[in-house]
């Protein structure tokens, strides 16, 4: 019809671009399969491929090149700025992660955020118990230093005699600890309120790990 019409892409171009995009998808998949090291290089390749695909797709599939510059310059710059937004999200998340890491390191001396390991965490029961005690919030009421917060401190707890409400005394052995985690209201240590919620979701293995951790905090326990 006229020049405007002329600028629409031809079928040949469309097919070429199609082939190119398929090749780019295949390339990024191969780069993923080969797990090219280092990681940052792999990611740079992915981003470069994505940007190239995006440019092709907008220019040819959405036919932005057929539009007048008035429209092109109104659409492209704001959309490109979105990448800046993603980078902002990354840097903000990175900062939060750093704060968490520092906080954990200051309070426990260990980084909580382990490097990704494929077995899903540690196998040492004491270590695991410590993580469970943290993640289940035990340590917000039970100190490991001997200080009394809400519940009895775990320091030196294992194997020590506990005076209960009602006058009887029990020894804090494994059976007692297990019962007190799963059903805390059964035996209440004197002068402590009955406020602990029952932790019924923990499985046997997790309970053992927590108890192993409690044991480790006591001189009578196995080191």
């Amino acid at each position: 019809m006229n020049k405007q019409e002329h600028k629409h892409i031809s079928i040949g171009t469309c097919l070429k671009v199609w082939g190119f995009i398929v090749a780019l998808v295949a390339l990024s998949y191969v780069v993923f399969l080969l797990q090219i090291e280092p990681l940052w290089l792999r990611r740079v390749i992915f981003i470069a491929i994505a940007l190239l695909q995006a440019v092709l797709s907008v220019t040819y599939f959405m036919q932005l090149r057929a539009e007048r510059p008035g429209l092109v310059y109104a659409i492209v710059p704001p959309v490109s700025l979105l990448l800046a937004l993603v980078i902002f999200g990354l840097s903000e998340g990175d900062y939060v992660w750093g704060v968490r890491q520092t906080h954990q390191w200051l309070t426990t001396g260990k980084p909580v955020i382990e490097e990704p390991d494929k077995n899903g965490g540690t196998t040492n029961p004491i270590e695991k118990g410590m993580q469970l005690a943290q993640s289940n919030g035990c340590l917000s009421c039970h100190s490991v230093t001997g200080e009394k917060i809400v519940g009895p401190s775990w320091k030196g707890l294992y194997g020590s005699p506990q005076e209960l409400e009602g006058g009887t005394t029990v020894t804090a052995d494994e059976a007692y600890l297990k019962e007190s985690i799963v059903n805390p209201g059964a035996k209440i240590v004197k002068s402590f309120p009955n406020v602990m919620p029952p932790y019924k979701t923990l499985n046997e293995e997790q309970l053992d790990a927590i108890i192993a951790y409690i044991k480790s905090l006591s001189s009578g326990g196995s080191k």
Partner: protein
Amino acid sequence: MQEHAAGLPETHGHEETHQHEPTGFWTKYIFSQDHKVIAMQYTITALLVGVVGMVFSWLMRLQLAFPGQLSLIQPDNYLQFMTQHGMIMVIYLLTAFLLGGFGNYLIPLMIGARDMAFPFLNMMSYWTYFVSVILLFAAFIVPGGPSGGGWTIYPPQSILPGASPGSEWGIRLLLMSLAVFVASGTMGGLNYVTTVLQLRAKGMTLMYLPLSVWGIFVASVLALLAFPALFVGGVMLLLDSLAGTSFFIPLVNQFGRQLGHEGGNPILFQHLFWYFGHPEVYIVILPAMGVVSDIIANFSRKPIFGYKAMVISILAIGGLSFLVWAHHMFVSGMNPYFAFWFAIATLAVAIPSAVKTYNWMLTLWGGNLWFTTPMLYAIGFVSTFVAGGLTGLYLGNTAVDVPLTDTYFVVAHFHLVMGVSAILGIFAGIYYWFPKAIGRMYNETLGKLHFWVTFVGTYAIFFPMYWLGAAGMPRRYYTNEAVTQLPPSSHELNIFITIAALTVGAAQLVFAFNLVWSIFKGKKAEGNPWKATSLEWQTPQTPPVHGNWGPTEPVVYRWAYDYSVPGASQDFTPQNVAGGPAQKAKASGKTKH
């Protein structure tokens, strides 16, 4: 360019298929696709919702002046009133009114179009807004009542059970309402932007547009680019609340029990919220700025001073609004290096704002001032904008902001600069266009009474809050009994503020009476009572009928500010008058070769 003219198969106005005026009651007044009727629907709904928001502010003020005296206001209710007051005023009143009300009414009339580009979408936009209002009020009848998590609805406290009132169904309904509002705002925004860009009259270039249209246009663009962040934040918060995801909620121990969340990032919500929230502030202030510019130029009988600078300032404020959001978060615990950048960008906003203020002053300077009610409101806008805006420089500086955060200093700042200013701009616009929209004049005496009580009253309310805030009065507190650093005299000041607030509230009855009385009994208005130049005053009928322009669309020959042109036969030359002397030579960028 010729190739292009041939490239377009149709002439201007080609896509119009709605020339036939609807006749039935339902299609004419309820499910109308006429931009003027939709504007009225938006206006009325937003004002009614605003009344609810105003009542909430009285209840809060009553509690602060007479703590514990009213059994109606318990701590939980106080937080709910506060939250709903903020949400209602910012989103459901100001945004809806300025974009939905003024935008719908003014854009087609001012640019010389017969209607919006997509009338059906326009109707859908209003009814979607209506649904969002219903969802907003539905929160009042669910168990727990509406959300009381603060208008910023920060997680975790806004969605954790028991952490704030209405943190279960109240907040969920609020989030759904916001999502629906975003849909409505997007439909409206698409319409406004497309209409301004594509439907202008012959001769109407962008640089001939009245500043009202510029303000609404840039605000609509901001709405289109900022609402998505609110939508995303809202969806994620809703998922955290309903589906138990952990986007925003970190590991939380509530009463010794670990909640089912882990590793979320609460500051992310603040980023998303303010990425929307800061542009939102300009979404409400830019249209008001535009309206005020037009009114000041008209009633000074002078061309607006520095039209190009005004347009560039509007664009600059719009652009900067996306780069300053984290100045709301200086104490949130975000990366401290961000504060540096965001403080600088924030202070840069002062430049275009000051340019606009100077231009308003210089337009007034030496003008033939005509103190009608809209003019008084427009000058009032400039005054409160300065009084509120200057303290933005304090709060934009990180070091000064830290001690002032969450005090009444902040409350005073944002109420004056975007609450009161936007409302004064709205009142200016209502009085200014009332004769055109209704066909009758309002009562000038009542209007002036309304202005003086409102203007002096809002200063009496918000200016003392600066002192209270500087003295350390925290915001959002039900009672200040425990705030020991406050001097006892601050309580007397609180009583004074409450009395002023109730007085200003009562003055709005004068406004309501004036409107209703004038609609039925007002003096018949001429087509152009203010002797204004812009196109909306040149319609063949007053009020304009369906299609706006009669058989021929207007043709524009000049900008909207040809007031007091030397040598002209009268002191204004409408935009659609050809020939004769002009203030501004025709723009150099010729459009047709």
